[in-house]
Structures are given as C-alpha cells and as structure tokens.
C-alpha cells in the first residue's frame, strides 16, 4: 500500500509579484483517490498546472518524481505521454464535433495512408463509452449532451490516452446530485482498475465520501495530508485545515420575521425559446419581506428559466401569468422594467452573464443602475467611485483598488461584485441563482452573511441552489420544482434532504 506513484517535492512557483506556491509537497499513493482542497486562490490549480506541464519545467523550483523517476515536463504533451491527464473545470470539448472525434482529438486513430480510420475510431470510442457507463452513440455531437455526460466524455478521452494518473479539477461543480453520484461511482471503479485520481473539490461531503487521502493547501503552502481511512476525518476537520480554525457553523444564524408579501407570481408559464415545449408550467409562488425562499430542483427542472422569465422576460417566449410586486400587478417586459420594479436577478454564471470581465470593479458595480449616478445622461465618475468604494468596504471585496479588472479577482470576490451591482439597484426582491457556486468555503460564509444582512434590512430573497444543505441552512421556506412545475412547498423546519429530493424527482416519472 505504501507504493508512491507521484511525489512533488518543495515546489515553489512565483508569478511577477506573487508567490503562488511555496515549498509545496504532495505525495500520492498508487491506486488511490487523493483529494486536494483549499480555498480559492490557495494554489490548488497552480499546483496541478505545474504537474501537468502547463507551467513548464524551469518556470518553477522543486522536483517531481513520477513512478520514482524524476520527470521534467515541457508541456502538456510530455505529461500525457507519461499517462498524466488533467480534466479542467471548464470542459475542453468541441461542441460541434462528435463524441468520437472529441475523444481522439489530437490523438487520431490513423489507418492506411495517414487518413483517419473512422470505423476503428468509432468502435474504440464505443468501448470507452461503455467503460465510463455512458450509453450514447459515438457519432452524436457533444453539444447534444448535458454537462454530466460531457464530463464522462472527458473521462473517456483521458482513458483513451492510457491514463495512469487522472487529475480532475472540480469535476462535480456543474453537476446535479444524480450526475455527481454517478461520477463518484465511476471514479471508484477507475480506482479499482488501478487508475490513480487526484481530485480538486470544494464539496467536502464528496471528499469525505470518496477520498482515500486528502491534502489541504492554504495560501500556497501544504498544510497537512489526512489519511481518510485511518482517522475519523470529518468535514469540520478539513475545514479547520483549510481556514486555519473551526467555524462554529456553516450557516450564520438569523432571526426570521417575515413581513408583508413583496413578490407573487401566479400561473406562470414559459415556453422554450426555440423548441416546442413548456419549460415552466403553471408556477405560483410568493416571497415576503425579510424572508428567504428557496427553490430546489434538479438541473433541467426550469429553475433558472423561471427566474429569468420573471426578470424582464429575459428567457423564453409566450410567457403568461401574473406578476405582483407589493400587491400591485406589474408587466415587466424588459430587464430595465424589471429593475425599475425592484427585481434583481443574480445569475448562476457570473462570467458569462454577470460581469464585464475586462472592465474594472467600479464600472461593473454601477452597470445596472447607471441612471442613479447620472444626470441628463452624464455619469458622475467621482460619485461612481465612491459607490464602488463603499461596496468594496461593505462586501469585503478583496482587491487592491476599485479600478482593478474584475477578471483577475477570485470567484468569491467576483460574486461579491455581482451582488454589489444588484444591491446598488436598490431592489425589493433579489433572486440569487446558485449564489455560492464555485467559490470557496470562506467566501460562501461571507455570502450567507450578506444575505442575512439583506433580509434583516427588509429585502425579500429567493435562493435557487443545487446544494440542499445550503437551502436547508439558509431558507425560511422551500419550494420544490420538477419538470417546470411546483411539486411542493414547506417551511424549512419540516424539510429534510430526503423529503426535498423525493419532491424534486416526483414529477419526472409522471411527465417524463
């Protein structure tokens, strides 16, 4: 069991002005699942880039031993030749190519005369798909698959390269619970076949469920490596390593005292923008001032679609139903009208829909409510900076200046910028779509604290989340959504993960 496949010794990697890694050591045993955790910016991804040759040899100090031999990777091809394959958080598949074409991209199965032998490629792809438990035709374009299945294609691609050490960066970040569970099962199966896995993850419950050992990284240093089998390692124990001390509770306490109703929708129905099907059907829900209402649903249940259609009809067509804000019916046909009516929607995909990544913090914060800073079309730039500065203070956005480009901030800080932007519109209702996706534990806690502060100030908050513990920890009341319909509503006191999951999957069979 003490057979070490990989040893990284005293790895130090500096960027101009920043030391990303300092004297990091990592030792991975053959055939284990080794989790790496740490907050965003702790250096996990940098370490993996060093390992996979993205940061080539010479650009860092320290040595890497693979199979007991020192190795020097000049690029990702070198590491792949040794059987080290990394699967990035943002999947690197070409959407319009088929599964087989993607699997063998850059590694084509050549036949006579150097031409690609498609029969062989497709047959091999079918075998690989079988081994990852994906039942799809290899000629299917990748774009037709969901994120979960795309993840499996990535793993099949890794297998095609005769992978011996598979590195997964946040493999389940974009997956729903069922797909996540499937992926974890697959990782176990791969381990049994002798493939070593390194998994970077924020989801501590997954780590405790699957990992054999866990290395915790903090601020570019190795904190500790925990043997998950020998000791009784709890999530709290890992968190202590990540943040340096215990946190009393994952979710901050809050006094709940809902006031009058702020937003109500009745019989809300939305058709898919191009396909002929209903995405949201006959949904009714309400939220009161000082209340956090959760929407639980699997991927594809219509959560985001519901939220965006309410937010100025920014999704779907043939939208019908009635929308009331503070008891008054409103017809918000554009995003601008929705904002004017006090509705704010914080997107689940901040990089694509939430931020102008090439612009600075200041202008991102002001983007949704420039009219509050302008007179007759002229923006008061100084006032704008003042607003951004106060957001930075109140939200604890870690940046050297409000003039810093948003794209360079960490995920948690970017999320705080998006929140600042919407708070500056002074909304009555905030719809938060996956507000803590892809951000570290510390920043999550800060986001929860911010939500509580908003609720205390009388705002109404709707939280959409894939993480049931988050909903149970934050909400006063939870609706479940399945196949575009509300399948249940309960106060948080009566809800459990099991009861919610049952309602979330309820309509699936019925409709599907």
């Amino acid at each position, binding site marked *: 069991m003490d057979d070490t496949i990989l040893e990284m010794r005293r790895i130090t990697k500096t960027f101009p002005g920043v030391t990303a890694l300092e004297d990091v050591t990592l030792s991975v045993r053959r055939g284990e699942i080794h989790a790496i955790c740490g907050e965003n910016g*702790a250096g996990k991804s940098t370490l993996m880039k060093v390992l996979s040759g993205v940061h080539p040899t010479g650009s860092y100090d320290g040595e890497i031993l693979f199979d007991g031999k020192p190795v020097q990777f000049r690029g990702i091809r070198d590491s792949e030749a040794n059987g080290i394959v990394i699967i990035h958080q943002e999947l690197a598949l070409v959407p319009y190519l088929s599964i087989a074409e993607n699997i063998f991209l850059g590694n084509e199965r050549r036949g006579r005369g150097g031409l690609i032998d498609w029969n062989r490629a497709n047959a091999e792809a079918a075998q690989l798909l079988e081994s990852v438990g994906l039942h799809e035709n290899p000629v299917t374009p990748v774009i037709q698959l969901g994120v979960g299945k795309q993840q499996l294609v990535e793993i099949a691609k890794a297998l095609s390269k005769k992978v011996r050490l598979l590195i997964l960066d946040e493999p389940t970040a974009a997956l729903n619970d069922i797909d996540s569970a499937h992926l974890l099962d697959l990782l176990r199966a791969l381990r049994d076949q002798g493939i070593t896995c390194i998994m970077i993850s924020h989801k501590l419950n997954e780590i405790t469920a699957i990992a054999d050992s866990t290395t915790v990284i903090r601020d570019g240093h190795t904190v500790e490596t925990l043997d998950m089998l020998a000791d009784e390692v709890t999530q709290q124990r890992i968190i202590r390593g990540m*943040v340096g001390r215990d946190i009393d509770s994952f979710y901050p306490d809050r006094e709940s005292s809902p006031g009058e109703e702020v937003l109500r929708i009745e019989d809300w129905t939305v058709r898919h923008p191009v396909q002929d099907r209903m995405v949201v059907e006959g949904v009714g829900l309400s939220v009161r001032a000082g209340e956090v209402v959760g929407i639980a649903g699997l991927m594809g249940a219509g959560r985001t679609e519901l939220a965006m259609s309410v937010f100025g009809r920014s999704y779907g067509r043939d939208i019908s139903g009635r929308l009331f804000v503070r008891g008054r019916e409103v017809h918000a046909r554009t995003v601008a009208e929705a904002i004017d009516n006090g509705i704010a929607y914080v997107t689940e995909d901040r990089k694509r829909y939430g931020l102008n990544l090439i*612009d600075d913090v200041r202008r991102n914060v002001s983007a949704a409510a420039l009219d509050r800073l*302008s007179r007759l079309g002229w923006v008061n730039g100084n006032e704008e900076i003042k607003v951004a500065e106060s957001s930075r203070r109140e939200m604890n956005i870690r940046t050297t200046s409000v003039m810093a480009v948003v794209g360079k901030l960490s995920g948690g800080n970017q999320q705080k910028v998006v929140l600042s932007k919407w708070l500056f519109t002074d909304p009555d209702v905030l719809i938060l779509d996956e507000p803590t996706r892809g951000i570290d534990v510390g920043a999550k806690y800060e986001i929860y604290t911010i939500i509580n502060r908003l609720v205390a100030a009388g705002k109404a908050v709707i939280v959409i989340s894939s993480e049931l513990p988050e909903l149970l920890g934050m909400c006063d009341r939870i609706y479940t959504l399945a196949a575009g319909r509300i399948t249940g509503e309960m106060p948080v006191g009566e809800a459990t993960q099991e009861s919610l999951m049952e309602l979330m999957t309820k309509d699936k069979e019925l409709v599907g």
Partner: protein
Amino acid sequence: MTSIKTPSTERPTPSDSTPAAALHTGTSDLRALVLNNLRQSGIYVALVVIVALFALLTDGVLLSPGNITNIVLQYSYILVLAIGMVILIIGGHIDLSVGSVVALTGAVSAVLVIQQGHPWWIGVVAALVVGVAVGAWHGFWVAYAGIPAFIVTLAGMLLFRGLTLQVLDNISLSPFPAEYQKVAAGFLNGLLGGNGFDAFTLLIGALAVAGYAVSGFRTRVARIRYQQPVESFPLFVARVVAVGAVIMYFAWQLAHARGLPIVLIILAALVLVYGLLTRRTVFGRQVYAIGGNLSAAALSGVKVRTVNFWMFVNMGFLAAVAGVIYSSRSNGAQPAAGNMFELDAIAAAFIGGAAVTGGVGTVVGAMVGGLIMAVMSNGMQLMGVDQSTQSVVKGLVLLVAVAFDVYNKRRAGSAR
C-alpha cells in the same frame, strides 16, 4: 487571505485597502505610471518616435509649417471616420461601408450644389441627412434583424457604391462654389492680424492649453475631494506643460503657414464631444458594456438594440461629415471617391489600442493611431518612397501594433 468570521465579530477592514487619505500625496513614480498604462502610453511613445524619425529623415520638412497644415488637411476625414469606427469597434461591431458612404454623401451634395445650383449649405445638410439615413439602415439590420455588422456593412459597401454611381450617373462633378470649398480648404486667418504670423491661431492655441489646464485641475480637485488617488502635483504640472508645449508648437507652425484650418476646428470639436461622450455619458458606458460582455449588459438592463442602432446612426453621420470634407477638399464628387477609407479608419482604431474582441478602445487612441498612419504616409511621400513600399510599411505597422496589443494582454493576463 480569506478568514472566516462569525456573525458576532466585527468585520475588520481588509488589510490591503490603503486608507484613502494616504493617496492625496499622489505618486511620482513615472515608470510605474507608464508601465501601468502601457497599452495607452505605448501609442503616444510610438507617435513621438515616428514623428522624430521622419522629421530626421526629411531634414525637418515633416514639421515645417506648410507640411503640418498639409497633414491636417489630408487626413482629417480619416480621423473623422476613425471616431465613429472606434465606437463601433468598442461595441463589438465594424463598418466596412464608410468609404462608399463618404462617396454617396459627397455625390448627393455635389448633385444638389453643382448640378442643381442650390446654396452650399443645402448640400451639407442633405449629405448629413443621407448619412444618418444610411446609418439607420445599417442600424436596423444589425440591431433589430440581428445580422452581423460585418455582413450588413459589406452589403452596404456594395449597395452604396452602386447608388453613388447612379446618383452621379457615372461621371465626376466639379467644381464646388467657393463657400463649399472653404470647409476643407478654408482657413481662419488674419482675424486679429499679426506680424508674419496669425495671432488668432495662437490665441486659439493658448485658449486650448488654458482649457486643458483648467479642466485637468478641476478634475484633480474633484478627485481629491472624493479621496481618490491622483498624480503628484509636480507631475501634473509637468504633464500640462508638456501637452501645452506641443499644442503651442503646433499652433505656432500653423500660424506661420496659412492660419487655422477650418477642418481642424471641426475635428477638434468632434474629438472633444466624442471623447466626452464615450467616457462620461451613460450611452458611452453602455457601448463599452455591450462590447465587453453582451449578455451581461443585456441582463443589466442595457437596451442593447437601441444602443447598437444609435452607434450605427452615429457612424453614418460621421461618414457624412467626412464625405462633406472630402468632397470639399477634392472640389467635386467622383464615383470612386472614398475607396478603401474604411480600412484606414479601422487601422487607426486598432493601432490606437482598440481590441478586436470589443469592449476596449478610446477616441483619443484612435486619433493617435490615425496620426501615426498619417505621419508615416506623409513622411514617406516627402521622402519620395514608392507607393508600393508605403503600402507594405503601413501593413506591417498595423500588424505589429495589434501583435503588441495581444502580447500586452497576455502579459497582463499571466501577471496575476
């Protein structure tokens, strides 16, 4: 780094937030300032180097009073086009039709004024109306029909060139009456007299410097009041003096030639107005937001279609202004007028630091980019360099400028 706080504990000030009060002292670190703004300052440096180079190669002829006047007259319409073009490029679009629109607006004006004998200002107004209509046409297809600007304006390039030929009935028209010619070839001279030079031009130059200094100072005061970082006072003075010296030298040279060209007044007014429009207005912000991230802008309540539409209307308007200037300068309308102007305008915008992907660029940058092209062309003409070599050099400069920009971005991206 991140620390976890229980709700009861006070939120500490982040350690990296410098107290705003400390920023008053400002920074005198010129090197840091230059490096931080390499993207912008790079092109200024390039312009200075190119001017110096050609001044040397032409034994100072480049900077002679007569030649400076020439550069202004010769390239003003490209600079006008570059203003509209850089705004479109910031918004993530492009306009390939401006050369044809320059021709069409000039042709309409020529037909009215030369053929039909209407007064000169009727021609100008008609040209502007046609330009705005063309812009609205493009704007409709891009903003409301959702056709990419590249296609719409490529079609426009053919369409409006064809219309130009029809309007002109395939022949050239000339000459314009003297009043019309004044737009591009006219000078304000001798209004205040002077001894061998035009005092009025110097006065305008001095007013421009004073305006620059006062507005700079007011901005500085406002920024200090809002507790924001400013450059140190000596550096501020040095900047004003340097810019002032350049403007006064320029005015001095013009004053010793034919005086203040009217096109320069038009151009200066446009640069001022559009500089403010892009930096200080809601509309300008929305253009940057759309170019930076279209979806995020739409979900922030920006009326994307409206903004796109007006960007194109504006380009049509500026193309018409350029059309009037060009027809006035060439004293007539020709079927082939304005050919390839779009490429010069696009090159000016990109040399001036606009990003191919949108969301980045400035009006002033595009002007500097246009001037780099202008000085190079003019310098090479003075040296008697072959037309073909000129083309090769200009092509390489465009490529190097964008390559530098891409390199710069990659460097910035990996720095943190």
